[in-house]
């Protein structure tokens, strides 16, 4: 099971700081998270299924847009961080 860590801003959607999820890739992991924590739906991904512009998903410290995007494969020992970008002012 991959270990998922959420940043503090995501916790407003009733998620814990960490969760363990079994999934073969990032898309399946996000599907699983949205099923487990319904208030996450449409917050990490928009209604077209794309990761929102100012949300970033990392696998073992690497942003998924530098890997294989939502198709980035996951193994049992992988760590996934879901963070928000630096933005604002």
């Amino acid at each position, binding site marked *: 099971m991959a270990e998922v860590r959420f940043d503090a801003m995501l916790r407003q959607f009733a998620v814990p700081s960490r969760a363990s999820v079994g999934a073969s890739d990032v898309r399946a992991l996000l599907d699983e998270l949205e099923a487990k924590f319904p208030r996450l739906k449409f917050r990490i991904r*928009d209604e077209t299924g794309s990761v929102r512009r100012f949300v970033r998903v990392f696998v073992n410290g690497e942003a998924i847009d530098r890997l294989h995007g939502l198709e980035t494969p996951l193994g049992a020992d992988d760590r996934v961080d879901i963070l928000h970008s630096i933005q604002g002012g």
Partner: protein
Amino acid sequence: MSADGKVHVYVGTRKGGYVVESDRRRRKWSVVGPFHDGMDVFHMAPDPRRPGDAYALVNGVFFGPTVYRSTNHGHTWSEVATPLIPPKSKRPPLDGAPDPARFPIANLWHLEPGPASEPNTLFLGVDPASLYRSDDRAKSWTPMDGLNQHESREKWNPGAGGMCLHTILLDPTNPRKMYVGISAAGTFKSEDGGEHWKPANRGVRVSFLPDPTPEFGQCVHHVVMDPKNSSTFYRQDHDGVYVSHDEMESWRHVGGSLKSDFGFVAAAPTAMPGSAFFVPLMGMARTTWEGGLQVYRWDDKPKKWSRTVNPKKFPGQFGTHREGMAADALDPAGIYLGTTTGQLFVSPDAGKSWLLVPHQFPAIHSVSVESPPSRA
């Protein structure tokens, strides 16, 4: 109408929403908020059918847009359903019409409570320009595809704020007559409750297209309906101020005598049929001219403009967003103007005098008003 006898002014800002309250004299104000702290609140809409109810359109930069409802004049808020473009499997066949779902919803722009005869109905305008309807007070939303898949859609273009559906007007004498404004597609009219729509821009000129009088494509900034005559509309476009007296079948340019009639806002107070207020701006700067606040009044009879405030009274350069001005339903009318630099100006006497609410807001996107009942 307000149930507690107060005037409630809902102020949507770049960094949250506020409620500004006063008694009906409208001289002293208290500020409640911010709510949705740090989030863009594009519009807050009181529901006159349920005094105390209001909706807030919150556009979060990180996690997307969300609709909230309050049942206590905006003092507390709960999340309700947010319309989302439905998955492709649930959309009707396109039959050659353009697919409206190429983008996710970027921002929620305007919520309009439905007619009194349909107390649970709401209408919502979003970017990318689309209209939604709820018949259960925002528990669920249905896209109105007669407009969203309009045959002209492929030729609509975004303005600087995105391709937003920002104005929704309902004819109080005929709930099947509806009007919307889209930047930059212009105004559209439906006479069958939103099933079918036609462009309604005849006479409105544009400076940014090869054809100066297109059927659609105008950059309409805001439109208001006359409070007593639902055939009459007052319209602030990118290219000037226009009036229609025939249900938007045609428009007449009335702003030509102003130094500039570029602007964003318009308001038509309930107690002042035949009149509307505008804030003309210098086109390039997007701020008031002559070094101070300016609010102009248009009177249909006689057809003339009058300045309601001396610019020396409030020196500075003020800008506005398209929903930055509103009027209440009292007599004399209260007029409320929020600026992009966070001032909230109030006229408690139909534009004869103006005061500044002593609170520095973030940049103000929108102002809307819940009025107390008129005295018998």
